[in-house]
């Protein structure tokens, strides 16, 4: 399936809703942020300016390390785990408790970004009441 690129009209409300849905789904989540193509924060659990700066620093180090644009970052420390994902021109960062399931967390982040990029509200995985 071809990935849709974000067309740059993602509303802050949609991103906020997507973040709330992510927090609802992921019991291990401590905080998260969704960034636009230009690195601006579309939604963050708290302190958006800090999220923007720290996420940019993480992606900058990762891009430099591999000599190309990184797609996923997973860092585990004793204090918690950081997941970062670029998809469809957007980026999502999540901080979780230690030992969160990496594949599920990346799956949720990717689904969220894919849905937002397609103009949805980030709740693509949610069962819709009218989908009987």
């Amino acid at each position, binding site marked *: 399936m071809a990935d849709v690129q974000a067309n740059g009209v993602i509303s802050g409300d949609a991103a906020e809703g997507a973040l709330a849905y992510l927090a609802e789904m992921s019991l291990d989540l401590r905080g998260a942020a969704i960034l636009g193509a230009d690195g601006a924060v579309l939604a963050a659990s708290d302190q958006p300016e800090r999220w923007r700066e720290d996420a940019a620093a993480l992606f900058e180090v990762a891009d430099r390390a591999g000599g190309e*644009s*990184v797609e996923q*970052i997973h860092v585990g420390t004793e204090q918690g785990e950081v997941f970062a994902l670029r998809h469809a021109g957007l980026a999502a960062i999540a901080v979780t408790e230690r030992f969160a399931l990496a594949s599920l967390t990346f799956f949720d982040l990717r689904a969220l970004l894919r849905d937002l990029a397609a103009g949805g509200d980030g709740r693509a995985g949610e069962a819709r009441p009218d989908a009987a």
Partner: protein
Amino acid sequence: MPPKPHRVLLDRVSGYADEAAAYMRRRRASRRPFARLYYKGGRAEDHAGDSAVGGELFVAAGRLIEVAGKKPKQ
């Protein structure tokens, strides 16, 4: 001939010690910090904490963990 009672006790104690040592080994391995980067095409890289890039990744990740704070109480 049944084993002497102190042999049974020693076997049991050394069994518990082996279990504890294995638990500690697993715990050390699972608590070791790691940094993994994934690129397009499935390429992945691991960076140790004592490498230059690994150190920078852990610092950047540490800042994000700090800004995220503790898990909100349910």
